[in-house]
C-alpha cells in the first residue's frame, strides 16, 4: 500500500494533545494503523506532550496513594491480547463496526451509494460510505472540516486521486464531486465537524434524514 495523502501536523497535534472530537480521532487512528510515517510524526508530538507533563509543577499525592495503587495491582487482570485488524478494517474501526465490513448495516442514499453512521461523541460525526465503482457522490462543499479515508477501492475528485489509506482533508474552500474509480467498489470512512453543503436540491432535501 502506497499512501500519498497523509495527516496534517494540525491533526497530529490535535490527536496527540487530545483535542480532536472522537470522530476525527477515529479517522486519525485508522490512518496511523496503516502508516508508519505518520506514526513516527505522532511520536514526535507525543514527546512534546511528555516533556510538558514532566515539566509540570508536581502536586503532592495523598499519603496512602502508593500503597493503595500497589494494593490494586494484586488483583490485576492479564492484559488483553494485541489488537490486530485487516487492511480494509484496521483494529480501531473494528471496535466500532465489528469484525466484518459485509455485516455493516448500510442505508441507501440513492444511486447505489450507501452509508452507515457510527456512534461517536458530539462535535463531529463519522460514517462509512459505500460508493459503487464508477459512481459519483453528490457535489458538495463543507462548512467545517471533512476527513475522508479510503479503506477499499479509490476515488478521484477535482484535487487528486485517493487510494487505500489516503486521507483527504477538505475545508471550507473545497467544493468537490468525488467519483469512485472503475474496478473495485469504494469504501471510505468519513468524518465531519459541520453539516456538508450540497449543491443539488435533492440531496439538500434528503440531508436531514441522513444525518450528514
Amino acid at each position, binding site marked *: 500500500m502506497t499512501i500519498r495523502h497523509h495527516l496534517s*501536523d*494540525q491533526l497530529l*497535534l*490535535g490527536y*496527540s*494533545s*487530545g*483535542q*480532536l*472530537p*472522537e470522530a*476525527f*480521532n477515529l479517522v486519525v*487512528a485508522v490512518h*496511523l*494503523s496503516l502508516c*508508519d*510515517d505518520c*506514526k*513516527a*510524526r505522532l*511520536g*514526535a*508530538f*507525543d*514527546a*512534546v*506532550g*511528555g*516533556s*510538558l*507533563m*514532566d*515539566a*509540570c*509543577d*508536581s*502536586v*503532592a*499525592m495523598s499519603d496512602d*496513594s*502508593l500503597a*493503595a*495503587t*500497589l494494593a*490494586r*495491582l494484586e488483583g490485576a487482570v492479564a*492484559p488483553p491480547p*494485541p*489488537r*490486530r*485488524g485487516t487492511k480494509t478494517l*484496521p*483494529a*480501531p474501526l473494528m*471496535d466500532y463496526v465489528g469484525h466484518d465490513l459485509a455485516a455493516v448495516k448500510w442505508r441507501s442514499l440513492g444511486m447505489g451509494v450507501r452509508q452507515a453512521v457510527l456512534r*461517536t*461523541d458530539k462535535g463531529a460525526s463519522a460514517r462509512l460510505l459505500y460508493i459503487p465503482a464508477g459512481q459519483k457522490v453528490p457535489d458538495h462543499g463543507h462548512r467545517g*472540516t471533512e476527513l475522508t479515508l479510503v479503506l477499499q477501492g479509490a476515488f478521484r475528485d477535482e484535487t487528486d486521486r485517493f487510494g487505500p489509506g489516503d486521507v483527504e482533508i477538505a475545508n471550507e474552500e473545497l467544493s468537490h464531486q468525488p467519483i469512485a474509480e472503475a474496478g473495485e467498489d469504494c469504501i471510505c470512512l468519513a468524518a465531519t*465537524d459541520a453539516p456538508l453543503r450540497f449543491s443539488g436540491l435533492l440531496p439538500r432535501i434528503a440531508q436531514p434524514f441522513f444525518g450528514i
Partner: protein
Amino acid sequence: MVATETGQTTCRDALAQEEWGALILRVRDTQDRDAFAALFRHFAPRIKGFLMKSGATATLAEECAQDVMATLWQKAHLFDPSRASAATWIFTIARNRRIDALRKSRRPEPEDLPWGPEAEPDQQEALELAQETERLSEAVALLPEKQRELIERAYFGDLSHSEIATETGLPLGTIKSRIRLALDRLRHSMS
C-alpha cells in the same frame, strides 16, 4: 542513586529519561515493586499536576493519576523505549485517561504493532531516543514565550482543535526520523 528518607525527590529527579525507561522494563520483566514505587514517586505528582492544569479537580486528578500508574503496570509489556521515552509513554496514558474522565468519550487508538521476543528494542536505539527526547525538552523550554504558551494551551486542553496552530516552530525532525527507524526495524524483524 540511592534515595534517602528526606532528600528522595531531588535525587530521583536527576534520573535521566533512559533510567526511567529501565525502571519500566524492570516492572515489565520482573514485576519489580521497588522500580514501580520509584516511578510512582516521580510521575504520579506530575500526572496529577498535569491533570489539574487541564481542568480536573484535585480529587479527580488524584484518582486518575493512580489509574494511570496502575495502567503502566498492566501495559508495561507494550512499552518500547526505542519509540517513546518513559515520560512520553506515560503522557499518552495520562492523556487517554483525561479524555475518558473529563470528556467521557472513547479514544480510538491505532492498532498494536507486531510484537515478539525477536523484536526486543535495541539498547543503543533506546538510549539515542532518550537523549533526543531530552534535547527536545530543552528546545521546548527555550521557545519564545508566546509560542510556548500556545503549545502548552493545546496540550492542557485550552484550545479547540480548529484553533491549533499549524506552524508550531518545534524542532521535531530528528526525533521523528529516529522513531521511523525503530518502526522499520520492528516491521523488518517481523516480516
